[in-house]
């Protein structure tokens, strides 16, 4: 395959940045999207140019590091797929592909396609934990949890914190990420002691980090590589309402 790539290049956080066009030949359809960028970077390195910086780690769809907006869609055109698990066979020979970083004030660009996602850590630090001593792994049924709750909590817990929800949101909101953690811990018996303070503290941290407000457009859930459902946000809102009532 031969491709025309238009990639966001930005030397550092202060640089203004722009889209730069590259032609790439001999791309195998079996390559992953990141391997395709590796090929480009090898060529750029041999040519003495600065390679394109992009985040990646496990390359098996579970670490949440890869973060590319591909043709306007975070993680590209495939549903429930991270950029590292996206293969070039989903593109056509001769296609133009636009590659941009996550765009959000809370996720400033570090270089090229790499953004600083520490704002998510601040949200988790504000309340995304439990204080119950867990010790070593307990017996399987020491604390019974209804099957449906366990399933919903597990589904929410699969969030890898990549930030695609923020990148896709027209409001730049991190509500799906926040809601996934609220849902995960709120459905577990171990999450109950801090349930009310958690939702208030995490929402405050979310707003302070500079994320936008949620208007329920549903863009987040459709690009989420783990398919975190929109209902988590309704659960968050319900918890928030109950926490406000408990506080008053």
């Amino acid at each position, binding site marked *: 395959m031969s491709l025309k790539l238009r990639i966001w290049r930005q030397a550092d956080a202060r640089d203004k940045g722009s889209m730069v066009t590259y032609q790439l030949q001999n791309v195998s359809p079996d390559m992953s999207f990141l391997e395709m960028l590796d090929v480009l970077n090898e060529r750029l390195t041999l040519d003495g140019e600065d390679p394109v910086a992009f985040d990646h780690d496990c390359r098996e769809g579970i670490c949440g590091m890869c973060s590319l907006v591909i043709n306007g869609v975070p993680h590209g055109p495939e549903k429930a797929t991270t950029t590292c698990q996206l293969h070039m066979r989903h593109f056509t020979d001769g296609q133009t592909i636009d590659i941009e970083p996550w765009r959000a004030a809370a996720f400033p660009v570090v270089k090229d396609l790499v953004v600083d996602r520490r704002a998510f850590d601040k949200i988790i630090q504000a309340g995304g934990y439990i204080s119950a001593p867990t010790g070593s792994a307990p017996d399987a049924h020491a604390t019974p949890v209804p099957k449906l709750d366990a399933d919903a909590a597990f589904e929410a817990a699969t969030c890898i914190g990549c930030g695609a929800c923020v990148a896709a949101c027209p409001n730049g*909101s991190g509500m799906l990420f926040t809601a996934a953690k609220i849902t995960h811990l709120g459905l577990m018996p171990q999450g109950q002691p801090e349930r009310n303070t958690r939702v208030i503290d995490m929402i405050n941290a979310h707003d302070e980090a500079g994320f*936008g407000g949620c208007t329920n457009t549903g863009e987040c859930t459709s690009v989420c590589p783990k398919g975190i459902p929109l209902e988590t946000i*309704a659960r968050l809102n319900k918890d928030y309402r109950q926490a406000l009532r408990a506080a008053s």
Partner: protein
Amino acid sequence: MAISGAALVLFLLAHMIGNLKIFFGAEAFDHYAHWLREIGAPMLPTAGFLWIQRIGLLVALGLHVWSAAALTIRARKARPVKYAHRKPVQGSYAARTMRWGGVIVFLFVVYHILDLTTRHLNPVADTSKAHAAVAADFGPDRWYVTAFYALAVTTLGFHLRHGIWSGLQTLGVSNARRERLLQGIAFAVAFVICAGFLSVPFAVLTGLVK
């Protein structure tokens, strides 16, 4: 956003049902319009209830616009650098047009009050003649009034389609099992309000209401 929106939706439902009185004849419609001014009498003065309702609606509208503006400003700040290539993935047309749709509906409401409440823009100046004002307003020679009315009400329909569901989500009423049902209810309410409001001008236009 959700609570002020809910108040406005309840008003729209009552307003739409009241409008359907026109299909019971000129006398019934004028009687209904007169009754609106008599609600609560003799405890309330003439049009007392209407003024309480108007103040309530103004407060709800003010809060609604204020929250929408706050959300818009936050959204602008949250994404200072725009995407070069952007395409909506899932968000419905209704969800994407909430802000400008809201502005269109607001401008229409201003026009609508000047037209059928104060009668500044209506051929029938006598405010006791509600039926005559409606019949004159939507006559075939004033087709542009009907066209603008239809456009505004359709925009309102889209606004309600996303707004009602979004409000239920914001209030935490929604969950995975109820999501489809609530989406259906939002669509049904938006459709009924839309159809109810549109039935009046088109009945006048086609001669069903004279």
